[in-house]
């Protein structure tokens, strides 16, 4: 809770900086504030307090995800100095990022559907603006518009679902809803419109996590938005959305999992297959990462399908591994895209120029592809393990096949990076200190988590 207050206040301070003219101090202030928030969240570990007549509930699950998204935001800030460079927009960009984060924290910690909705809207509306924050770029405007239109549509579904659930359970509170569903489902008396409500909420959430067939916005928005915002969306926002998804379904709808698990399993299978297959033919690294993030959403959905005692830890570990990997990959993308377009071909000759950094990028790619001993492998391992335990063997088979397709395009990055540059190419991808630092941190963390995965996973089980 303290972390949430700190972030919200920080957002207000960021707005004030425009008026009181301390914009130069803003970025250091944000970093210090976020570090404090992260520390406060970790400090609350094992307290599990319900605040404001049970509107938010900071249990270990919420605290773990809160710390994670704050930490990822901090990592993201390492390469994002340029986004806050222009004097005229620094304050508003910082404010929007902080409010997005604020919404994300609420989405990990809500204990009431109304709070969930507020968190989601704080996050989404800030994000609509951020996606189109490159004002003079047509594509960025298109991205913001597209995201806004389709996002509000999905929110409508979500709200409708909530209304139906409320109609049945007569409460927004997650615990009360869970009790209601437990008693009614035990006697087989769950009214039909509860199921409809669950389905509608599922649709809304699947839009947010970009699961197929609600993913169509993702590649366009990811491509159009400024690269740094895409990185933010693909990591922080996605993690928060999954935290919310899992929290809702594990708390409330576990007792009627027979109704939705099969559907979700199919969605998950289609998502990872489609994401990976569509990524294969991409020539733009940015679009490739967009499709890869869709595919990863499919894997994370598997944990929700499995829904057993290790799923919470598994989804946390996966979100961590995926965010670190994506952030590292986006750092490289951001570095090379300064020298031209975002084509994957720009990576040609990367290894010859930046030996060590190419090795780190290689580690990150291995992590995303899920090869041991890097974090991504263990994340996949826990997910597969959980799903097998819940007897969805066919889903594991699909996941294996799609992982193989994943290897195909992830390794294209390694192959291209190792090839000598063609003579005609004039671009010289080189990395700034900030990019190097982020690559180093994310690669070493991915390796560290890969060698000692038990800690992170054990936090939540």
């Amino acid at each position: 809770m303290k972390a949430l207050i700190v972030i919200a206040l920080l957002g207000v301070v960021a707005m004030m900086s425009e008026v009181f003219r301390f914009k130069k101090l803003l970025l250091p202030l944000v970093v210090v504030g976020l570090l404090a928030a992260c520390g406060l969240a970790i400090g609350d570990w094992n307290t599990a307090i319900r605040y404001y007549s049970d509107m938010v509930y900071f249990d270990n699950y919420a605290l773990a995800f809160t710390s994670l998204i704050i930490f990822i935001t901090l990592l993201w800030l390492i390469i994002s100095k340029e986004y806050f460079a222009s004097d005229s927009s620094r304050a508003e960009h910082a404010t929007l990022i902080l409010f997005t984060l604020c919404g994300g924290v609420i989405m990990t910690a809500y204990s009431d559907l109304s709070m969930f909705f507020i968190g989601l809207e704080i996050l989404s509306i800030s994000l609509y603006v951020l996606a189109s924050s490159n004002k003079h770029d047509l594509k960025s405007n298109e991205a913001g518009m597209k995201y806004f239109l389709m996002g509000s549509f999905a929110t409508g579904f979500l709200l409708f679902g909530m209304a139906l659930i409320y109609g049945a359970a007569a409460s927004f509170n997650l615990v009360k809803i869970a009790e209601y569903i437990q008693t009614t489902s035990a006697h087989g008396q769950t009214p039909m419109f509860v199921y409809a409500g669950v389905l509608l909420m599922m649709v809304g959430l699947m839009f947010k996590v970009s699961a197929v067939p609600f993913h169509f916005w993702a590649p366009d928005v990811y491509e159009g938005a400024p690269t740094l915002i895409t990185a933010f969306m693909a990591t922080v926002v996605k993690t928060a959305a999954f935290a919310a998804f899992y929290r809702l379904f594990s708390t409330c709808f576990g007792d009627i999992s027979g109704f939705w698990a099969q559907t979700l399993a199919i969605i998950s299978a289609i998502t990872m297959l489609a994401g990976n297959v569509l990524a294969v033919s991409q020539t733009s690294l940015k679009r490739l990462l967009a499709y890869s993030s869709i595919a990863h959403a499919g894997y994370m959905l598997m944990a929700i399908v499995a829904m057993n005692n290790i799923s919470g830890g598994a989804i946390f570990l996966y979100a961590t591994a995926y965010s670190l990997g994506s952030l590292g990959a986006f750092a490289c993308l951001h570095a090379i895209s300064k020298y031209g377009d975002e084509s994957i071909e720009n990576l040609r000759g990367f290894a010859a120029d930046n030996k060590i950094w190419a090795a780190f990028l290689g580690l990150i790619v291995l992590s995303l592809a899920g090869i041991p001993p890097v974090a991504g492998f263990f994340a996949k391992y826990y997910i597969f393990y959980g799903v097998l335990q819940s007897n969805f063997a066919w889903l594991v088979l699909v996941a294996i096949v799609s992982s193989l397709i994943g290897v195909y395009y992830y390794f294209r990055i390694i192959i291209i990076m190792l090839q000598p540059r063609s003579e005609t190419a004039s671009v010289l991808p080189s990395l700034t200190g900030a990019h190097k630092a982020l690559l180093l941190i994310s690669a070493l963390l991915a390796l560290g988590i890969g060698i000692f995965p038990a800690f992170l996973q054990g936090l939540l089980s």
Partner: protein
Amino acid sequence: MITLLILLVPLVASLACLMLDQAKVKVFALGTSLVSLGITVYAFTLFNNDIADQFLVNYWWIQNLGISFKAGMDGISILLVALTNLLLPLIILTSFRHEYKNANTFYALILFMQFALVGVFTALDGFLFYVFWELALIPIYLICLMWGGNDRAKITLKFFIYTLTGSLFMLAGLIYLYLQTPGSHSFDIDVLYNVTLSPVAQTWLFWSFFLAFAIKIPIFPLHTWQPDTYTDAPSQGTMLLSGIMLKMGIYGLIRWMLPIIPQGLAEWGNTAMILSVTGVVYASCMALVQNDFKRLIAYSSIAHVGLIAAGVFALNLQGLQGAMVQMIAHGVNVVGMFFIIDIIQRRMKTRKLDELGGFANNSPIFTILFMVILLGSIALPLTNGFVGEFLLLNGVYQYSAWMALVGGLTVILGAVYMLRAYQKVMLGEPHERSAEFTGLHQTEKIVLVAIATVIIVTGIYPKPIIYVAGPAIEDILAHVKDIY
């Protein structure tokens, strides 16, 4: 402790290689691989083949999932570790005449490969085994990708995805197996050996494991990655692949399949046997018509390991003993053969059989050493190949006379294609460029003499191998025999 040392020396050396400068790295890599060899020899002096898991190290890795870092050696493991650590210095020596770009990365990858291979052969925890199994794939992939031939990107990716497919199915199988263990689950090999499985589960597990091992070995019809990869890889990569890496597959069969799913084997072993034997004949016939010397040896390798796999599927003492002997023999011989090809190719800039010929008089010592290695590969009595193939065919014969008959064709066909190659390369009309073929350099002599010595010594006196592996094989068979 010794196990840990054998694992850590190559790992540390591999990291150290990255920091050294290009000129010194060769000697350094050779030095550390000799240290590993020394430790292995020392381990042999301490080895008591009546005790099951020796030099055991056992730490928790991921305790809440029952995954431990458990490694140790029995007779089977120590022989394969010895093979790895014996071949590594030789393989590094073969690279002394090459000037590779980014040499320190190259040697770092080779030593890292050694670490992973030793890990595979010593791991006594299912999960650890899987991690090492995958770990071995990355360095060899990069070696082939960075220093391979022209088509390398496509071929190596096919190789990687092929093998990863098998591995992932094995992973699913391992997790399933793990979920069947009693109590709070465990990946410990002793626990996995005692899991009781339904016949249906055994069938599924059989195929998931078989896929992984059969792709690695490779068994027909899952071999299609192999000829291209072997041909396209740099010489040292080919040696690592054929000399040691495919032994991982056979080792996996013996250690992780036979004792765990004996019923699955009883039901499907026959299919596997037929596939293995088919591969023997198929690959031998393919070898007969190759013009590229390296590709010829690649196919001959499929034929040889097909017979080894058949020996394992025979599920009897002779078959498994033969597999052990032949794994060592094939490892040594095939490295020798690929080195000979490397020597020829570096001098003549070609390895097409019809562009070679008439070297026999240029370098008598090369001619003799080539002949010895060749005789080893075609299993002439008094060479190591003979002992292995004799035991293997004996084992397969006990299983089925027909299989032995078909499998035995490998001896005849092997002699045909190898002697044909020898004739085309060494004898006949000297090719116009044959005069360019100069004598052997010092390092080349050392490697070839060492290999020829091993071929003859283990051919005349193979007893130590059989003696060391004996009790361990009987342990494995005891698990299999419980079923019958």
